[in-house]
């Protein structure tokens, strides 16, 4: 919680993060000058949106110290459901509402099973995800849905611009702003963090911890549905494998951000996703085949986590650059 932690320490990490973004950006711009073109930057902004929403949902779950492996399944089911609603001729907002409702309902099932009935989180979400992935086939038996997509205007969510920036970026920023406010400036946020870091003490402090665990899954489900909505907008159809690739970038974003900024938070996730999208787009722009670019991302995730870990700091300190380090990260422990 930014206001709750040592501000100096936070800002030192923030500076480190900015430096990293600039360094990565510069490296990519040198390798491919068009990286800095407005089209490319716009592309990054747009491509960030879906992964960013999924990562945000995951952030809530990670804050209450749980995991959610049902992301792809939920995305598939919510995506196909929204597709079916659109194909049936309903207006866009009905489809979005249906998607959010489905995401929330599935999140509620997992959340209640985990918090209220004490089922283990990983297996439960695997099971729920598996069921959802299967249910995604119920509408068309697996055929893609594209009818009415143009008419209903869903592609505008991806293509339209508002004040020079893509609508999807605005959606992302708005949702992140709300999430940031809730998690870092309200009682709800304090309760979330307390639930994650010591559920017993939180319970003794009058916080309804089970409710917050369930809520985290509900929010994750909703965010996943919104993420897949943007994917549908991007690809102009609903297919059962939409969202299959949401999970790994989302986890990578949450953890990379947490490693760099020193804890799981809304801003850390945004930062992590920004870095990852920059890299993915930069490599794609250069035409680097996916099998190299995905590897590079993994490598960078690993290097980032390693470089910002406590142990590595201890090592650096023992190599005699302790003084310089202490200045750059005041208030840091051991």
């Amino acid at each position: 919680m930014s206001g709750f932690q040592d501000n100096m320490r936070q800002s030192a990490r923030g500076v480190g993060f900015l430096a990293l973004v600039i360094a990565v950006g510069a490296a990519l711009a040198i390798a491919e000058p068009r990286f800095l073109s407005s089209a490319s930057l716009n592309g990054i902004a747009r491509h960030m949106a879906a992964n960013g929403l999924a990562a945000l949902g995951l952030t809530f779950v990670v804050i209450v110290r749980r995991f959610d492996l049902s992301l792809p399944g939920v995305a598939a089911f919510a995506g196909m459901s929204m597709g079916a609603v659109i194909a049936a001729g309903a207006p866009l907002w009905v489809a979005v509402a249906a998607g959010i409702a489905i995401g929330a309902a599935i999140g509620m099932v997992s959340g209640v099973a985990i918090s209220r009935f004490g089922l283990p989180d990983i297996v439960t979400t695997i099971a729920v995800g598996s069921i959802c992935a299967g249910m995604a086939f119920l509408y068309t038996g697996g055929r893609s849905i594209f009818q009415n997509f143009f008419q209903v205007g869903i592609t505008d969510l991806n293509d339209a611009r508002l004040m020079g920036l893509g609508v999807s970026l605005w959606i992302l920023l708005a949702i992140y702003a709300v999430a940031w406010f809730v998690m870092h400036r309200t009682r709800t946020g304090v309760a979330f963090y307390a639930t994650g870091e010591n559920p017993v003490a939180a319970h003794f402090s009058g916080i309804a911890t089970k409710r917050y665990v369930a809520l985290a899954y509900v929010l994750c489900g909703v965010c996943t549905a919104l993420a897949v909505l943007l994917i549908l907008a991007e690809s102009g159809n609903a297919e059962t494998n939409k969202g299959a690739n949401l999970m790994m970038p989302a986890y990578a974003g949450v953890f990379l951000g947490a490693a760099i900024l020193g804890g799981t938070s809304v801003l850390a996730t945004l930062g992590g996703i920004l870095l990852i999208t920059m890299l993915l787009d930069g490599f794609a722009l250069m035409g680097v085949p996916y099998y190299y670019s995905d590897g590079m991302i993994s490598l960078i995730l690993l290097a980032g986590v390693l470089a910002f870990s406590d142990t590595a700091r201890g090592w650096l300190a023992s190599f005699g650059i302790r003084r310089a380090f202490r200045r750059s990260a005041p208030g840091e422990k051991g």
Partner: protein
Amino acid sequence: MAAPILTASGVSKRFGPVQALQNVAFHVAPGEVHALLGINGAGKSTFIKILSGIIQKDGGQITVGGEEVHFRTPEDAIRAGIATVQQHPELVPDMTGLDNIFLGRESARRGLFSRIDQRGLERRAKALLSRFPVALDLTLEVGRMSAVEREAVAILQAIAGENTRVLILDEPTSTLTDIEREDLFALMGLLKAQGIAIIYITHQLEEVFAIADSFSIFRNGTCVARMTVDEAKAGRVSLADLMLGEAIGDIFPPRAATAPGDAVLEVGALCLQGDFDGISLTARKGEVLGIFGLVGSGCDELAKAIFGVTPPDSGTLRLRGQVVRLTSPRAALDAGVFLVPGDRRTEGLVLSRAALFNVPLANLRRAAAGRWSLRRRRMQGDARALTGDVALHPPSLTTPASGFSGGNQQKIVLAKGLYSQADVYIFVEPTVGVDIGARAKIYALMRQLSRDAAVIVISSDCDEVHGVADRTLALHKGRQVEPVSGVFSRDALLMAGIMGEVAQ
């Protein structure tokens, strides 16, 4: 006295901005029981963590049996014959007491691939228990044991090693009752007789005279004095003064001068199957009610029942005359009841967070001034004021609670209680691990609180209960024991708590 088995000189350790240890000199001889004293945060635990290889010193020298040693892992220390019971013993909850005791030395050949001989373990456990008789069901999983039983397992674990030359006990008595303390001292006597050096940390100064041969006093990360108990007796030295660096008078504040006010909390015939039965008591504004009970007497459970953690099976609760049902801590807090739990590390604090996070946690409504978003500036001001009131040391609002010494962690919980502005405060074992200076402050604080709220102090320390409370009762095996008339004397209270009898 024989040549020292363990010496340290110039040992220092730094945690970020905190210089926890500075140039510490220390020695202990075989068969010597040496007490390590000092106020909370003086650096005692840090020092013994270095001795046991859990953390590494920044500088200085340590020798064992005359040879210089460098412990990089706990294994190194164990190999050198140093066994430690940490202040917060780490055990494996799902394993039985027996398996915990022999964890890591299941067979003679240490290592990952030695075969476990469960019968042999039982035999060794029997041998161990015959040397150091403790009443303990070792087939029970540690997670189901009480705090005392866990402490006993931890001590047995520490002394089970055959080559132990130095045994370090970090505040072993803080969770023990008087009787169990005697058992522990007997056990220490046995070890001493076998030539094992014992380093012993405590905040109970009278214990020093009962068991120790010598003592060191730590202050601000250095060892400021070392002498034998005989020297101290001869010189009429006040340990408390030495520790604090200033003179301290009576640690208990004067009792209330005025008559108690209205009843705030009335408990009527409260029952919880298996824990306590038919408890009736009244807590009033303007007085401190003391409840003395050994571990297992149902004290902790009673506190948790009132606080709504485990609602009682039957009985009534009245707050300010109204009957209430408190089915959760939240309901209790909303009704104005606050519990300072006995297990502060798991029940009281979010250790990974600073005071600024922990203090407002039980009253987020106040932190948000009734709204949804937090009033951060006001919250910070309140937290600063309250941590000042409890004399938190160091007075940092942004250091994670895990970075504070045990006693200071307790002070953060107290500040949290103050922040919640309750009408009824229930303190369970409020000064476990708290140094004498801070204890005086906490008692004074309770007294101060009692002016506007009802205060109940529940403790297994008879002196504490008797010293701080205006009115006392005892809990014995789940039943309450009250004085026939008037108030308990200290000895009558002790008898009531231990035997369940009212001395006439």
